[in-house]
Every structure is written in structure tokens, then in C-alpha cells.
């Protein structure tokens, strides 16, 4: 059904895909595996017409085709289901299933739509729901199934599912798996992108693994073990990327006891020392970042107690956390990390406006001194402070997003995905800057879906799987392999 050969794609200086082959037969579920940044998403974008390959050929149904646009991909029967669902809450279930279907005609009654959608809903196990009700009244899992029903209604021949189970519970996952099987049973070629290796064995006949932009020949899941898959996924990486540890661990700074918040399924306890860096590893939806968000005052505490500097502390709002000198850097840099339309002076001093003003008037000298100081610490070119943050590279934006907190003189710096959207060279720099901060006595908590990053950078490592802290131990007692197992398939991590 689908044959992609020798696909290569370059973004500026970085080679995203070097040489990738992907072959999927009709009625087959092909798992697409790889670490973050291995090139999975680039491949998926090429297949769905959002990006164009620099080299290589794509055959659909035996004919060589160029996929110029998402519309063309759709016309060829290729559908992509992103992690962010495209189910529209205010429309009825039936309308959502048949959305964009031009064969029904302009005039359509709800009951006719419900009748037409019924068979598709039944095939994904949603036969019991009232198709006339708005989609927003159903759970995330049910909406995921509605989305798959839409693929069925469109007679999709090639379906790409991007981590469809990331935010679902066990029982819900079983239903989505059944729907994916139904999709394959219709003769659809399914490309199933996932980080959960357990699903791969249950669902997929074969798996294609991408590592650093190159693909391995597809392997039959019946002939490999979890360990072999992990070994193929994890390439050798440059170890000198990570700064040396100086054995962090001063006095106890933060003690979290039996805390629970949305995103966690089991209470968590941990102690963070002065100058220590703890990293949480976990996939999206695993709850690795929940404690960070809770400490930043963005998620309510449901139970448990927190003490900071030996005193009880409740992060009741973002404001309260900042006042307690807890800084939080979210993974969505573009949304709340930087002010894209403002220059770096203003960006770097945003959390400390009062500190650079006198009687309500901004002291431009103080502003410049503070911004320069941060820029020097984070290797940002001081001559470029007048530039707009939005015009910087991802790495420099991340330095700005992190650096602006230094002016606050925080006691804890919390970072979600410290190097998302940052190229390899700038990564090492950001690791070095974070380590330098802990050497100076700052404590750092970070979460990441990049296992290498957590293992290489943190003093202590926590692994998360489905809202549960699997293990928290010094990084030296863990290997990347054991961590990967813990965050993808903890049942095998004996």
C-alpha cells in the first residue's frame, strides 16, 4: 500500500532525516518507533503533505506519487490523527464522524447523519452512544474513537496515528486498540507512532525503528524482545554533551510529602537539596511534569504537604510561587516563555520590573546592567540585546526563557523540557548553564521526555509511567536502557 524509500530531509544545517525507508501493507499495523528527535515527526509530516522531502520516493498503491499538500494527501486517502484531536466539541458525534464529507450533499438532517455514521461508530465500539449529542459530552478516549470512526468513513487507505493513547487510562487504551484493529481489518494501512512498547507487541505486526534520521529494516514484533527494541532505539550519543557533576547536595530545601495533583495517579514524596538537580523522565501524559506545575501554582494540590526552607508552603497561585522565589519555565516557550515581539532587555527583566525601576520609573542603566549580567552568564551576545526575542534561534530563546529568572535570584528553578526545539549545539550549552546554576547553590527540578537528557544531566533521576513515580534514584545507579524500560514498559523492568 505504502512504500517510502530513501527519504531525506534537511532543515538548514541539521539533517532531520538521512535515509529512511518505510513500507506498510494494506491491513497491517506498522509501529513507528524512535526517541524524541529521531525524525519520526518529520517523516509523518512528509507523509501527510505538510513537508516535502529533499530526496527519496513515495509509492502509494504501486504508483509513485508526490504529496504536495495536506489536501492532496487527503485525496490520496492518507489521514493523519495528531495528538491534538480534531474533534469539534459543539458539533454532534455524527457530524464529527462525517465532517468534510462532500458526498452527502449540502442538505442533511441530523437524524440522517446519525444513521449514516452509525455503522462506523459501531465498528470502533461506540455503537452505544447517542450520535446526536455534542461530542464535547464524551471522554477523551471516546473522542479518540470518534476520530478513528471518521477515518473509517473516509475510506482511509493509509492512517497515521500519533500516540493515540498518550493521555488515556488502561481500560480506555484497550478500546482504542480494538478500534485500531478494526481499522486495519478494513484493509487500511496503519502507521502507529508510539512510545509505549507494550502496545507495539499487542497491536503491531512489524515495527520500523528510526534512529538519528536513519531507519532499520522493519522487524516482526514476534521475533524481537523489548530489550532488543530499546537497544535499536537508543543510539550512541555524545557523552561529553553533559557537564560534570560536582556531587550536589547541601541542606534540605524542599520536602514534598505524599502529594497528589491532577496528572498523578499515586502520591509522590521527595526531598530536594540545595544545589541539587533532579530530573523526571516520562512520556507525554506520564505525569512527569505534574509536580513542577503543582509547585508553580498551576495545578491544585489534592493531598499531602510541602515544606520549603523548613516552613510549610502552599503554592496557591503562580504569583505565590514566584513570591517564594520558585521559578517555572514551561515547555511552551512560544506561549508563555518569551515575549516574541519585545527586545531582550525587556524579556530578561520581565520578572523583576520593580527591581530595575525607581519610584515607578524604569532606570535604563539598571535595566541594561541586569540584562547584560544575565546575558553574560548565559552566553547571549550582549550586542544583540536590542533584537526581538522572536527573531532568535530556538536555543537562544530558551536561554532567554531560562535566564530571565536568574534576576529574581530564585531558590528553585523548575524547567519543563529544557531543550525542546533546541539544536544539538545549543543543548550542550543549556546543560552547562543549568549545571553552573546548581554549582552556585540553586536547586533545579526538570522534566523531560528525553531519557538521555535526564540521565546525563540530573543528580537524581525519577521515572514516570501513567501518573506514577516508578523509581527515584541517583543517576549513577541507572542506565539509559533501564530508564527507557521504566518509562515505556515498566512491567518488564524487574
Amino acid at each position: 500500500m505504502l512504500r517510502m524509500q530513501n527519504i531525506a530531509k534537511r532543515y538548514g544545517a541539521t539533517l532531520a532525516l538521512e535515509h529512511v525507508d518505510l513500507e506498510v501493507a494494506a491491513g497491517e499495523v506498522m509501529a513507528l518507533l524512535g526517541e524524541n528527535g529521531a525524525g519520526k515527526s518529520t517523516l509523518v509530516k512528509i507523509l501527510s503533505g505538510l513537508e516535502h522531502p529533499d530526496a527519496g520516493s513515495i509509492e502509494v498503491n504501486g504508483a509513485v506519487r508526490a504529496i504536495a499538500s495536506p489536501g492532496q494527501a487527503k485525496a490520496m486517502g492518507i489521514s493523519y490523527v495528531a495528538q491534538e484531536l480534531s474533534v469539534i466539541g459543539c458539533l454532534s458525534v455524527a457530524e464529527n464522524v462525517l465532517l468534510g464529507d462532500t458526498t452527502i450533499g449540502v442538505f442533511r438532517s441530523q437524524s440522517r447523519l446519525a444513521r449514516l455514521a452509525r455503522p462506523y461508530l459501531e465498528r470502533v465500539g461506540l455503537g452505544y452512544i447517542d450520535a446526536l449529542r455534542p461530542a464535547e459530552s464524551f471522554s477523551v478516549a471516546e473522542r479518540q474513537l470518534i476520530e478513528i470512526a471518521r477515518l473509517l468513513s473516509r475510506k482511509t487507505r493509509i492512517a497515521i496515528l500519533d500516540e493515540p493513547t498518550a493521555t488515556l487510562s488502561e481500560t480506555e487504551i484497550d478500546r482504542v486498540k480494538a478500534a485500531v484493529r478494526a481499522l486495519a481489518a478494513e484493509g487500511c494501512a496503519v502507521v502507529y507512532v508510539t512510545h509505549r512498547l507494550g502496545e507495539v507487541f499487542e497491536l503491531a505486526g512489524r515495527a520500523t525503528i528510526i534512529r538519528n534520521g536513519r531507519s532499520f529494516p522493519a522487524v516482526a514484533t514476534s521475533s524481537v524482545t523489548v530489550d532488543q527494541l530499546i537497544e535499536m532505539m537508543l543510539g550512541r550519543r555524545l557523552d561529553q554533551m553533559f557537564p560534570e557533576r560536582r556531587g550536589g547536595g547541601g541542606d534540605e530545601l524542599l520536602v514534598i510529602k505524599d502529594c497528589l495533583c491532577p496528572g498523578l495517579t499515586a502520591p509522590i514524596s521527595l526531598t530536594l537539596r540545595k544545589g541539587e538537580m533532579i530530573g523526571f523522565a516520562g512520556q507525554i501524559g506520564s505525569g512527569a511534569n505534574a509536580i513542577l506545575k503543582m509547585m508553580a501554582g498551576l495545578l491544585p494540590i489534592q493531598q499531602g504537604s510541602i515544606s520549603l526552607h523548613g516552613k510549610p508552603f502552599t503554592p496557591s497561585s503562580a504569583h505565590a510561587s514566584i513570591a517564594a522565589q520558585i521559578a517555572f519555565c514551561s515547555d511552551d516557550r512560544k506561549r508563555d516563555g518569551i515575549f516574541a515581539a519585545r527586545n531582550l532587555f525587556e524579556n530578561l527583566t520581565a520578572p523583576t520590573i520593580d527591581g530595575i525601576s525607581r519610584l515607578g520609573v524604569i532606570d535604563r542603566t539598571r535595566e541594561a546592567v541586569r540584562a547584560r549580567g544575565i546575558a553574560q552568564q548565559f552566553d547571549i551576545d550582549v550586542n544583540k540585546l536590542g533584537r526581538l526575542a522572536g527573531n532568535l534561534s530556538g536555543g537562544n530563546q530558551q536561554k532567554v526563557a531560562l535566564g530571565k529568572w536568574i534576576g529574581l535570584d530564585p531558590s528553585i528553578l523548575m524547567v519543563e523540557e529544557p531543550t525542546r526545539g533546541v539544536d544539538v549545539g545549543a543543548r550542550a550549552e543549556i546543560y552547562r548553564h543549568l549545571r553552573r546554576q546548581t554549582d552556585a547553590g540553586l536547586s533545579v527540578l526538570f522534566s523531560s521526555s528525553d531519557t538521555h537528557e535526564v540521565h546525563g544531566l540530573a543528580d537524581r533521576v525519577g521515572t514516570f509511567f501513567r501518573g506514577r513515580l516508578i523509581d527515584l534514584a541517583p543517576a549513577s545507579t541507572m542506565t539509559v536502557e533501564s530508564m527507557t524500560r521504566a518509562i515505556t514498559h515498566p512491567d518488564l523492568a524487574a
Partner: protein
Amino acid sequence: MREFAARFALMLVVYAGFATREPSYYHVAGIASLLDGAFLTGVIALGVGLTMVAGEMDLSVGSMAALAGVLSIKLETFGVLPALVASTALAALVGAAQGWFIARLRINSLIFTVGTLIAFRGFALLLAGEQTVNIPIADLDATDFLSAHWLFLSPLGGLLIVVALLIFGLTTFTSWGREIYAIGGGRTEARAAGVSVRRPLVLAFAMSAGLAGLAGAVMSLQSDSATPLGYDAVLLDAVTVCLIGGVALRGGRGSVVGIMIGLFTLRFLVSGIASLGAPFWAQSLASGVLLISLILAEGGYAFLRRRRSFAGVGGLRGGMS
């Protein structure tokens, strides 16, 4: 239907509150004047409501009504109906162009229609020569049929019912209408699902301008004259009607039934206040206060919920960037 129950009850309460003081409410003539009085606001609210459902808002309807009113008086020499049809069609065409630009430029419709609001007003003044325009005295009889009544139904009331039924059909039984809900309820999701944003936007803005044009032309022809500065308060009433009727400011939500309930709630309130002997300018205060309480009630709940997270703090949705 449950969602309408509360709104319907509110309408009945307002009605009952004033009906005891105003005996004419029970008469056929009372119903007729109620329908006639609701025509202008109702027809325009149905159009503006469509743009609100799409997650946008057409602020230019008042100017468009004035422009179409002047145009229809000028065209009356070719006959009343041709004048009516031509003004409405032209307004719809201009509205379609407006929707196309908003979709093409991905510009916030609030901004774009503020500009056209000024421009349409200018065109109306230009066309009218900056004065009230009148139908030639010889033709006065020709428009009398617009003021005729059959029991409680006049052409105005009938037209309001027809327009409401048409919009109801459009938004319930056609894919074009449902696409308006789709882009209002989740624009990125709709795009991802392969729904074009352009067609529903063009349709919604064509309808809002066309209905504003229709309302302006009918009202002007009925009164045999049009002033280029008229209809400047109609937007406020139309938005109030939509909000009472449950059209969400964020888009994706709203129905013809709700808008009709909102329309009559406002009409009962306005005529009720008038029946209490309050001066006409008190109506402005009443509708202002009503609208303030409505948006505070709608926004207050969501506001309290999103205080705790970043997620809801983003600005206006729609074509902001």
C-alpha cells in the same frame, strides 16, 4: 431543549412582570405591534448571531442597514420590490466580500468591521447627499402594503418569521450552516479535519450584511424615508438579543430558537419599561445594564475556573493573528 428552558422562563417572567400593567399585551393588535417592533432587531440579530457563532462579529450592520435604506429609497422609482431585492442583494454581496477579506487576510473581524462601519456610513451619507431622503409623493401609496395587517401578521412580522425559519433551516439542515458552527467551535480542529474556513466566513458575513440590508431597506420603505445616520444603536440591541439567547461570545454555540427567545425577552423588557412611563432614554440604560449582567454572568464562571491555570488566560480567540 433543556438549555432553552431557563431562557424561556426568563422571557415569561419578564412578560408576566409587565403584562399585568399593559392590557394591550393580550390583544391581537398588541401581538402585531410586538412583531413589528421586533422586526428590525430580530432580523439583524439573526445575521450578527451567525457571525458570532462563527467566532467572529460583524460590527458594521448598523451602517449597512442605513446604507441599504438610503439605496432602497433611491431605487424605489423602479418599484418597491425591485428596490428591496436589489438593496438586499447588494448588501449581501458586499458582506460576502467582507467575509472573503477576513478569511484571506486572517484579520480579526472586530477590527476589519470597525473600518467598514465607518466607510459604509460615509457611503450612505454620500448617496443621500447628507440629508434624509424621501420617496416621491406620487409613489407614497406604493409602499402602503408594508404597513398592512392581516390579523396579527404584517409584512414585517411575516418577514421576520420567514427569515427565522430560513436561518433555522440553514443552520440545522445544511452542511454550509454546520460549517459555521465547526469553525466557531474549534477553528484549528476544523482546519485539521479538512473544513475550509473561507466558505463559512463568507457565508456568515454575507448573511449578516444581507439581513442588515434587508432590515434597513424594509424599514426605510415602510416609512417612505431614510436617514443616512440611522440605525446606529441596532448593533447593541442585536448583540444583547444574541447573548440573552445563548449565543456564545467565543463562538460555536447559539441557535435560532435561542435568538428568538432573546429577541422577545428584550422586546417585553423595552415595551414594559416604556409602559411604566419611563422616558425613552432609560431604555439605553436598561439594555446596557442587561447586557453587562449577561456577559458578567457568562464570563464570571469561566473566569473563576481559569484563574488557576495558564490555559485559559489567552486573549480573544478568533483570527487574532
